[in-house]
């Protein structure tokens, strides 16, 4: 892009001089403060007090015999946080077990708001059920960006921290803390803060774009108090103990599907839940979606310029073809001694999987339910058994699939923020159309599965997308 800097006069020479003055002042040694000279008797008393205070009052002046947060290096990019006091048995009970229930108290700082407020504004029709262990702040001017996330754990649980670029031990708001800078592709700064009086470690995941001074200011404002059974912050295991492969030969990503995949035919009825049966009427893969109703596409992403959800034209071109997406290819590291390495970015095409399903409510009451469908990608092992797809494992930065289309008659709702489900009156039968966009490269490994019952069901009615 051509610059228009010639619109300006040349920078005056005096400005250059001012810059040099500022640089000189910045780099000049800071003047030391005068230390008042005490009267000898007072000085002796002060010295005695300084020596004896840690013994008489261990928490005054922030002094302690030993720190609580002790990183033990495991690898080049990892440390184990040994939260047991040095010299103490690992099975010993902590001196202070802390209250059974605790409450994390956070007040978003200027420029941020918490998840509850954000969700209520963007999803006014859907009451949000906040998970107390998922406390997040988002930037006010960019809710799609990451801000802060907070998690609680007990210090006596060992923690492994990987993808560590560097760390520094410090004190934040009077609490012992460790600030961890990320390594490799990891993009969040982690801050561990010890709350000894309640025996809690707060782990904060912070967007790297947030300046350190802002982050410190924000973290100084959080506290952990005793909670009640009705009002408490659960402990989170979600981000604990990042996996450490047992051996280099072990592939940590290979998992065997634990559920029963019951293959069904087009036109064959199957159970959706205790009230509803379903039947796949048709299943096709489309190159082009121009014959579909534009306003029946579900919303995806929020446009903060227009303060509305992305429109049809944002992801479908003039010919009705889905825009290609970009994925990034990485060579994964073990995150302990090696970090992930970026290789290249690849654009890839998308296809559309469109299928019609007839649902029947066999009860005498109206029912609501999700469609029950998911798009999964399975491969087969050497014995012909379906396993989780390893294809494109190291491709990142793009979703492989997305539930994108739901015909209006599913639940009668309008707008982009429709609930992705169905409403059936007592005894009603209706056919709805569902669409997923899919990474073209994974079509042969794509399977549509439908739950029989709830999320914990072990049985999935299954349809292979391609023959």
């Amino acid at each position, binding site marked *: 892009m051509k*610059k*228009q800097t010639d*619109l*300006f006069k040349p920078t005056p020479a*005096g400005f250059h001089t001012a810059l040099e003055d500022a640089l000189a002042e*910045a780099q000049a040694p800071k003047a030391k403060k005068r230390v008042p000279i005490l009267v000898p008797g007072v000085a002796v008393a002060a010295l005695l007090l300084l020596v004896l205070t840690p013994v008489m009052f261990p928490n005054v002046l922030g002094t302690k015999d030993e720190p609580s947060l002790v990183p033990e290096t495991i690898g080049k990019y990892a440390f184990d946080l040994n939260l047991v006091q040095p010299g103490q048995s690992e099975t010993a009970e902590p001196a202070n077990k802390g209250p059974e229930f605790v409450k994390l108290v956070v007040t978003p700082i200027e420029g941020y708001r918490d998840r509850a407020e954000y969700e209520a504004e963007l999803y006014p029709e859907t009451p949000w059920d906040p998970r107390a262990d998922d406390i997040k702040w988002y930037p006010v001017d960019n809710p799609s960006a990451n801000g802060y996330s907070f998690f609680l754990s007990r210090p006596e649980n060992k923690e492994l921290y990987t993808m560590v670029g560097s760390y520094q031990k410090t004190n934040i708001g009077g609490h012992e803390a460790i600030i961890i800078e990320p390594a490799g592709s990891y993009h969040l700064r982690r801050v561990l803060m010890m709350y000894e009086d309640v025996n809690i470690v707060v782990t904060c995941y912070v967007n790297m774009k947030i300046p*350190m*001074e802002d982050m410190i200011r924000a973290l100084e404002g959080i506290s952990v108090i005793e909670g009640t059974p009705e009002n408490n912050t659960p402990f989170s295991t979600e981000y604990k103990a990042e996996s450490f492969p047992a051996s280099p030969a072990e592939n940590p990503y290979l998992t065997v599907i634990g559920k029963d995949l019951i293959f069904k035919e087009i036109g064959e009825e199957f159970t959706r839940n205790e009230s509803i049966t379903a039947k796949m009427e048709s299943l096709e893969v489309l190159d082009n979606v121009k014959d579909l109703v534009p306003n029946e596409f579900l919303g995806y992403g929020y446009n903060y310029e227009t303060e509305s959800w992305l429109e049809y034209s944002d992801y479908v071109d003039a010919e009705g073809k889905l825009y290609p997406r970009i994925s990034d290819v990485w060579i994964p590291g073990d995150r302990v001694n090696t970090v992930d390495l970026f290789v290249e970015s690849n654009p890839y095409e998308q296809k559309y999987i469109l299928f019609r399903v007839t649902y029947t409510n066999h009860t005498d009451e109206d029912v609501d339910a999700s469609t029950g469908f998911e798009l999964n990608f399975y491969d087969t092992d050497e014995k012909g058994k379906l396993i989780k797809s390893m294809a494109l494992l190291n491709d990142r930065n793009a979703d492989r699939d997305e539930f994108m289309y739901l015909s209006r008659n599913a639940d009668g709702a309008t707008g982009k923020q429709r609930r992705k489900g169905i409403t059936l009156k007592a005894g009603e039968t209706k056919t709805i159309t569902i669409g997923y966009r899919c990474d073209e490269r994974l079509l042969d490994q794509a399977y549509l599965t439908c739950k029989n019952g709830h999320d914990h069901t072990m049985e999935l009615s299954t349809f292979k997308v391609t023959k």
Partner: protein
Amino acid sequence: MENKLFEELVLKNENRLYRLSMSILKNYADAQDAVHDAILIAFEKRETLKNPDAFGPWLLRILVRVCYKELRRKQRFADAPEYLQSVPSRDNPYADVEMGALLDSLPVKIRTTVLLHYVEGYSVKEVAQILRIAEGTVKSRLSTGRTLLKEKLETTEPVAQACRG
């Protein structure tokens, strides 16, 4: 970051610092003060910058904040007669007086966005990072800036050139 490297990077951005501060504050003395403060802040925080390649946008971000702070301070005292009497006239940094007047007529946030993108040549993403706003907001401000410029001047080659980039 070593002092010598810091110094080199600051001087490398000298012209940008001048143009940006003058565009926002419209006053040479105020611009010098703002740049002075921004350099002191940047030096103190230099270790928070991990990638020296991002020094320019990082320093400009600090400067924008300092300039906006100064503007707010001025607005608070704008009603004081003694302040009004001491306000110096606008110092003109523009080689093209007409174009300069056009840019000056834009609201300060739009003017800053237009300057960073069309004059300094930063991408939308970079401008968003400097101003700590969403990319959509950058685009919106650029669009508004173009509209306002067109309204004020039906057709002027420098303006058209600037808007086309």
